[in-house]
């Protein structure tokens, strides 16, 4: 039976938990690479965070496309072009430009739009998302994580809360790492994309954990499954859901990313949809391959589940929780 058919019929048995070494090394590798990227390259912060240069001039006949082209031609990345007033005023915000480039841009505007050079003003502009805003955002993130840990500890249990948060941080770091290595500009829109990932990643983990909680609740002294088997079973149970959900969520984002950017080139749309696209894929991966194995690692240390694992190992009825290569997991 082909994979597609098995997926369609919900007959899948993937040993996610047993392959924890693989996932941990993969995630570890990605995290190290991401952190290295953040340290070496850093994030390419946009004008909103770093400040930049604002040009103002009047050009009655120019169109937005022309003005944008003009700046791009001078080697300015992602200029923000706005008209001001009603009499052909323009306001273009760019990254901070060096003296040379600045003069070059000014003379190009003067020449191509027939504007007297003296009437092109350029000023440096500070960050509209300054340090204070970022600081508040970090505080917000911290409080958010605490609130989620509290909530999940109550709704589920502390170990699940911990696993979910670790997976969340994992997703954010890897997404940020991709930004660092690719050099894509981080704008406020990107930041909001990160926040969406944050909610999405947790949402996904919570649905999976809910099923794990349900399945493992039945485990007792006489059960034929270890915690890891039960958890893996639960994962496979929700696998179709995870895949379908992710697909449905990613399809529109992918459409915006691929169709939008091929039609329109770079821009805010790309910044936002790329963060979402990457984040969602990483988020789906992490709730299956990071959050759950981590939870199992934590839970298998509990005496109750150790006892089950020991008993099953001695009777040969089951595999040890770790290093199990086989996927012979009993179906509930």
């Amino acid at each position, binding site marked *: *039976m082909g994979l597609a058919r*098995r997926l*369609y019929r919900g007959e899948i*048995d*993937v040993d996610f938990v047993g392959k924890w070494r693989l996932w941990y090394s993969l995630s570890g590798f990605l995290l190290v690479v991401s952190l290295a990227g953040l340290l070496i390259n850093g994030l390419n912060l946009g004008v909103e965070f770093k400040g930049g240069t*604002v040009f103002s001039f009047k050009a009655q006949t120019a169109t*937005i496309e022309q003005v944008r082209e003009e700046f791009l031609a001078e080697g300015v990345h992602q200029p923000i072009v706005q*008209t*001001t007033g009603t009499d052909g*005023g323009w306001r273009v915000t760019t990254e901070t430009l060096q003296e040379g480039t600045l003069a070059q841009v000014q003379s190009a505007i003067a020449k191509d739009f027939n504007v007297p050079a003296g009437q092109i003003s350029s*000023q*440096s*502009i*500070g960050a*509209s998302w*300054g340090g*204070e*805003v970022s600081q*508040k*955002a970090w*505080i917000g993130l911290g409080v*958010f994580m605490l609130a989620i840990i509290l909530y999940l500890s109550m*709704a589920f249990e502390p170990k699940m809360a911990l696993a979910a948060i670790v997976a969340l941080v994992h997703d954010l770091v890897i997404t940020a790492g991709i930004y660092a290595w690719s050099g894509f500009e981080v704008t*406020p*829109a990107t*930041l*909001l*994309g990160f*926040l*969406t990932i944050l*909610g*999405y990643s*947790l*949402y996904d983990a*919570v*649905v999976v954990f*809910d*099923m794990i909680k*349900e399945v493992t609740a039945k485990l007792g002294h006489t059960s034929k499954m270890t915690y890891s088997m039960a958890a893996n079973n639960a994962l496979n149970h929700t696998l*179709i*859901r995870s*895949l*379908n*959900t*992710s697909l*449905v*969520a990613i*399809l529109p*984002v*992918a459409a*915006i990313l691929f*169709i*939008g950017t091929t*039609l329109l080139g770079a*821009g*805010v*749309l790309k910044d*936002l949809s790329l963060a979402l696209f990457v984040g969602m894929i990483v988020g789906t*991966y992490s709730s*299956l391959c990071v959050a759950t194995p981590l939870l199992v690692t934590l839970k298998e240390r509990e005496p109750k589940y150790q006892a089950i694992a020991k008993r099953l190992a001695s009777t040969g009825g089951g595999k040890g929780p770790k290093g199990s290569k086989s996927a012979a997991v009993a179906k509930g």
Partner: protein
Amino acid sequence: MARPTSRHSRPGRTLLVLLALIFALGGTMFLQKAFTPKLGLDLAGGTTMTLKPVTLNNAAPPEEILDRAVSIIRDRVNGTGVSDAEVAKSGSNIIISIPGVGQNEALKLVSTTAEMRFRQVLASAATQAPQDLATNAPSPTPSGSASPTATPKSGKSGKSSQVSTPKPSTSPTGKALSSALTAPTPAASAEAPSASTSAQPSATQGSQKQQKKGQDAKATPTAAPSAQPSTPPAQDQGINTQGIDPAVLAQFNKLDCTKKENRGQGVQDDPAKQYAACESDGSYKYVLDVAKVVGTDIDSASAGIPQSSVNWAVELNFKSKGADAWAKLTQEAYSAQPPRNQVAVVLDGVVITAPNIQGPIPGGKAQITGNFDQTSATQLADQLKYGALPLKFTRQSIDTVSSTLGQDQLQGGLIAGAIGLALVVVYSMLYYRGLGIVAVLSLAVATIITYTAVVVLGHNANFRLSLPHIIGLVVSIGITADSFIVYFERIRDEMKEGRRSLRAAIEVAWVRARRTILIADAVMFIAAIVLYFLAVGGVAGFAFAMGLTTLIDIVVVFLFTKPFIALLARLKFFAKGHPLSGLDSERMSEAHTSSRPTKPQEA
């Protein structure tokens, strides 16, 4: 296993509730004639204003003071709604951009200095403007000083000015009499020779109720026969100049409150110095003591109509240190002679009210009444709440700006989003077949509710959609979809076990799916609430949209998806497991032909 509860489920009724909700939202749209959402700065452009700081020596203000001003303006501008505004420094100027064209008034408001200072009145005088006198004299009868007038607000008809609620007053007249006759300081008399000639006749002989503006020469003609209102020095008559800085007194004498520019916005009064100021309507001028209580002592401010009143007022709560200072200030004023029993409330260098203190006010509360309406009271409360600007600014320019995002980007985004949605529809139909109809209709219902909610919120709470919001809403499709995918999979699980009819399976699966959906949505909602209250600017608006879609998700699943499936289950097509229903026997079969490990393809 939970018992099937199909007997109790009434899908028809639930769907009617949903219909009512949609009609309520749609009806609001039609009543308000608002059919499109309001758009944010990036999509629709807005109004931008450049502020230039004014300093005494024209030097650039220190960086940290400018930063503080930026952060206060940001708080103010984003404190007024859930739309995203931008505030940035440009050199030493500040540029504010807020969404929407023609928001000039809103911009002016957020740039008002609004440092409130409480200063004891040392001296006061009416101004000579005829129109002011006409409206402010208590009565045309000349005996204002001799006979107590009916109200404590004697000075100004129609304008109540009280700090705190009036308390039964015990007259401090005795003290007032004894100290009002103190000789002026030599310096003061040199500055204003006529000051020593008359010892404040009106205040000393009048009742306590006439203390306010007791030396108003015009209003109390019998009391100050020598007053020549048209000549400035005459105003000193009757003023107790003790303790007044001569320079300030000179300023006071020169101050012409009939001129509007003298009582405009943004005169910087140094809280550590005495100060001469005008009443905001120009009717009086004052010499004011150093500010004993200042804006930073204010803990919170709110506008409202106090009980036993019909006028708007601003209620203040002081921080603990401010509360002590306030109690001390009112105690001092209370035991002083007129006019020093008044405490002036000074905002942006202008006296907005200068009520008599009729008793010490402990407890750190104050109430400012004046000729406020709802708008002005709320504005004042907001300005106080979000702090005072440490600098005075002049407005350089107010301009309309276009969207920062090209129209092409918006269009491209919408087209791409529509294609993406179409893909979702195709996928749902292929995968879930018959149930796919439920999925697609659920998405459609969610879209309708979201659209109407965004329009209604835009017009009532100034919620403006920016591009990130729109993308956020598109992503929330995934979350909405997840709710019914969780439910569908649960139904299929129940059916696979093969012990139930579809109708029973739907109910059992619902009990389990409901819990999962609620827990997962709670996570999203917590995220939204925390981000909304802690973050700033764009993030707050985004969090708002996120919380909104989470609520809508719950509404759609509970009021549409579940009852709609329950209705469909009554159809033979679904109940008998037609191959196209998505609940066919092949799909539900218990065949386990493969237990081979398969490589996960999704990671």
